[in-house]
């Protein structure tokens, strides 16, 4: 049951072979067994979760069923969910109970899905290893001394360890795709504006995008059907017609289902900095795509090297402003003792935020300051447009772009915490899609040996054009019809 796809679970529920309460209890039991060690969840509330499962069973009994009705989903702790502790991985919000629902929470509720709990994450989604979380690091289920990636590390570990049927994540610079690569599952960052950001705690507003984290592309498509869609409460939500993301999945049984698909390989994604073993796995995956009928095209994204510097100007700039609301005045952490208003601000923020968050607030404040704004912020915005233009040119030559999602397999906890730049380089292949607003996904493509001889998952990244998620999901799905990487599960968690 824990390895079943969302579609299979839905069918079992609707056929009343299992109840939502039974399914939910199965996962709650697994969480109880494994979570103390893995630390994928920050908040659990069995009462609330089982009440939702009961309600789902009643819906099923009444015949009022949607594809995800009764299925337990883990929610990244960046989404406000009414009555739930919503911390964003920070001491600042450790005591915050959300009084309202994020748009996607409302959507999952309406679909009859069950909220299994709130998953661990890097503090305010700032990190690539989940090590900046106030609630402690998360273990990679494939190798417990390694990180799951970040910032959606809790959701990643929960999906990989089968502590949920599927999970949500958010991706500002790679926070869905890099953990998907490091934990061996399928994760999609949709086009900017496809999923409403309402109720999703902001890190960098122009880059943040929520998306599904699940075992397969088909699961992600079903999740997208719930998550995506116009929401007037988010001014950057795009007013497009609701689409069925599964629409391309089931209609190609021929030998070469991807015949005619042009796959672009950016040379910049296969150069220095890419782990050789990871590179081999990606090349093998590309070869498999050729077997499926795809045509390989060499392309270039010349400004790729600028994406990290640009990102580390723009994202901290927005974050420095977005995080100003955490001042200890209305909610969240307030220092116990202070002498005056300024002292209260200083102490509350000094105590409430961790080192990485402070580092980014400082960077962001600096680049927006009078005298530096033009040289940093404005310049970065100009380069951001060049990076987006690179993709416009690339998509004239190909339908999708492929490459690694992360430069290495999962690294050991503690290995990069003291070297922010090495940590930032984890997102070298993912950040430019956020800057361009494009959709990107990571799918399991095999395993690579680490230096110490551990076999670890590797993710293949697929980048599509704006609103081309349905096609990307099919491109991933066809690969998953002829490979079984996405069905692999870490040993010892059965």
């Amino acid at each position: 049951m824990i390895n079943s796809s969302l579609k299979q679970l839905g069918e079992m529920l609707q056929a009343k072979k299992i109840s939502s309460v039974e399914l939910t209890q199965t996962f709650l039991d697994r969480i109880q067994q494994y979570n103390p060690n893995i630390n994928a969840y920050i908040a659990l509330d069995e009462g609330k979760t089982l009440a939702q499962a009961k309600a789902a069973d009643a819906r099923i009994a009444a015949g009022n069923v949607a594809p995800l009705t009764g299925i337990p989903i883990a929610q990244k702790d960046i989404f406000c969910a009414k009555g739930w502790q919503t911390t964003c991985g920070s001491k600042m919000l450790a005591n915050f109970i959300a009084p309202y629902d994020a748009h996607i929470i409302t959507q999952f509720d309406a679909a009859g899905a069950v909220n299994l709990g709130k998953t661990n994450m890097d503090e305010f989604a700032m990190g690539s290893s989940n090590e900046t979380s106030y609630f402690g690091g998360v273990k990679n289920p494939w190798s417990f001394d390694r990180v799951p990636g970040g910032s959606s590390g809790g959701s990643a570990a929960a999906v990989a360890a089968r502590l949920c049927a599927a999970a949500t994540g958010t991706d500002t610079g790679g926070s869905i795709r890099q953990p998907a690569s490091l934990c061996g599952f399928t994760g999609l960052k949709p086009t900017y504006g496809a999923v409403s950001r309402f109720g999703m705690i902001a890190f960098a507003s122009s880059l943040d995008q929520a998306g599904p984290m699940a075992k397969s592309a088909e699961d992600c498509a079903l999740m997208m059907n719930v998550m995506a869609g116009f929401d007037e409460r988010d001014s950057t939500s795009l007013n497009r017609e609701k689409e069925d993301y599964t629409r391309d999945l089931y209609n190609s049984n021929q030998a070469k289902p991807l015949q005619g698909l042009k796959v672009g390989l950016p040379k910049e994604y296969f150069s220095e900095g890419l782990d050789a073993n990871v590179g081999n796995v990606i090349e093998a995956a590309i070869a498999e795509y050729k077997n499926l009928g795809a045509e390989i095209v060499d392309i270039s994204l010349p400004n790729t090297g600028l994406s990290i510097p640009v990102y580390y100007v723009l994202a901290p700039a927005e974050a420095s402003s977005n995080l100003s609301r955490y001042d200890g005045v209305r909610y969240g952490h307030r220092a116990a003792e202070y002498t005056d208003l300024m002292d209260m601000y200083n102490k509350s923020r000094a105590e409430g935020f961790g080192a990485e968050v402070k580092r980014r607030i400082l960077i962001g404040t600096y680049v927006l300051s009078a005298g530096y704004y033009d040289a940093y912020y404005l310049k970065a915005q100009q380069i951001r447009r060049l990076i987006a233009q690179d993709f416009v040119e690339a998509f004239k030559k190909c339908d999708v772009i492929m490459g690694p999602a992360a430069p290495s397999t999962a690294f050991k906890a503690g290995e990069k915490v003291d070297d922010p730049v090495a940590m930032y380089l984890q997102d070298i292949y993912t950040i430019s899609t956020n800057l361009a607003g494009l959709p990107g996904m990571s799918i399991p493509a095999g395993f690579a040996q680490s230096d110490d001889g551990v076999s670890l998952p590797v993710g293949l990244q697929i980048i599509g054009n704006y609103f081309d998620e349905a096609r990307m999901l099919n491109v991933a799905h066809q690969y998953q019809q002829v490979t079984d990487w996405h069905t692999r599960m870490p040993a010892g968690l059965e």
Partner: protein
Amino acid sequence: MEWEVVIGLETHTQLKTNTKIFSGASIKYGAEPNTQACEVSIALPGVLPVLNKEAMQCAIKFGLAINAHIAPRSVFARKNYFYPDLPKGYQISQFELPVVGKGAVTIQVPAVGKNAAYEKVVNITRAHLEEDAGKSVHGAVEGMSGIDLNRAGTPLLEIVTEPDMRSAAEAVAYAKKLHELVQWIGICDGNMQEGSFRCDVNVSVRPKGSEKLGTRREIKNLNSFKFMTQAIEYETRWQIETLEDGGTIQQATVLFNPDTGETRAMRSKEEANDYRYFPDPDLLPLVISEADKDAVRAQMPELPEAMKARFEAQYALSSYDANALTTSRDLANYFVATVEAGADAKQSANWVMGTLAAKLNAEDTSISDSPINAQQLAQLLKRISDNTISNNAAKQVFEALWNVEGSVDDIIAAKGLKQESDSGAIEAIVDEVLAANAAMVEEFKAGKEKAFNALVGQAMKASKGKANPTQVNDILKKKLS
């Protein structure tokens, strides 16, 4: 040395929308603290702003009213600073690309002393949309400061002038004109006590004839025209005295203390915040199409200047009368309604600006709350014109109307104020008066013109004031000639 004062104004006008500029919370004044503070007003984690289209329409209205450039694309920016009443830690405003660009307002500067009244054009630099902050409340809870976020997110249009004004009188004339205009076009209720219309005044002085601007100080948050006059005059004197004493002016923000009549520096430029403005990534650029402008234009009321010109042409009013009648839309509408109900235009203008205005003023009420409506006033004026009542009797009817004693005709009947216009009856009275006052008749015939007036008075008295004075005059003249 002769000095010249240079003044520019920044006015925060609170827009008369139903809800806040970026959320659906009410902006009604005077509610219990924090009862109008929704998730967005409190700046809970995860909330997002959505522009209230009404605020955009108000900005377009203002742009059209001052004949300004309305930006087809303007940008909301974040102004970052920490303050307890600023829940997000930034104010959403507009910085580099405001919604309204350059425009102009024509002001009438009243006569002061031996200086005659004159007209002047004040150039508007820009007007931009922004949200208001909340309020700090001290002392409501013993030993603590409270925050009321009801006002947080209230839509404001900040209107900025060029440094075009050269006296307190000009600055106040501009502020009054702007105050009238924003109410006229219906974008602001103009309530200065409740903070709906607040002025920041930039004042600097320079030697007369100098082209270079002096260092300015900004007087914050003036909420009455009287204080504005006092503050500018004090600040101007202070700056001149400081310079004449060999001092220099530091750029600063100052507050006016109405109790002492003085201005005092709040913070200097060095302590000023670096607001780290940048475009708000949560909001798309504000795009205003020709169709948006046309839609607002279709709802625009006739503007005061146009109405003034029309009054002069259509009703043959003097420029002075037409101007006075177009100082507020309610006043102008009342006047037009009076004329449309059949009253003579000149007579209506005189009564509206004379008897009615005096009464409204004495009773401290506004024309929209007048107990006498335009139709009633018109009826009263018609009864004067058709000789039913005299001007004097009309004053009594006016008082009775004010006290809601009934219709014009009922009051005339009840009080027996109808004029005697039957020439036979008047002739009989005149004959009696002539017979009884032979001495006066002799005096008149001997050339004493005053005796004629005395005879008119006698006739009026004999008719108990009801005789039509014009007829009495005519008949007397005829009989005495």
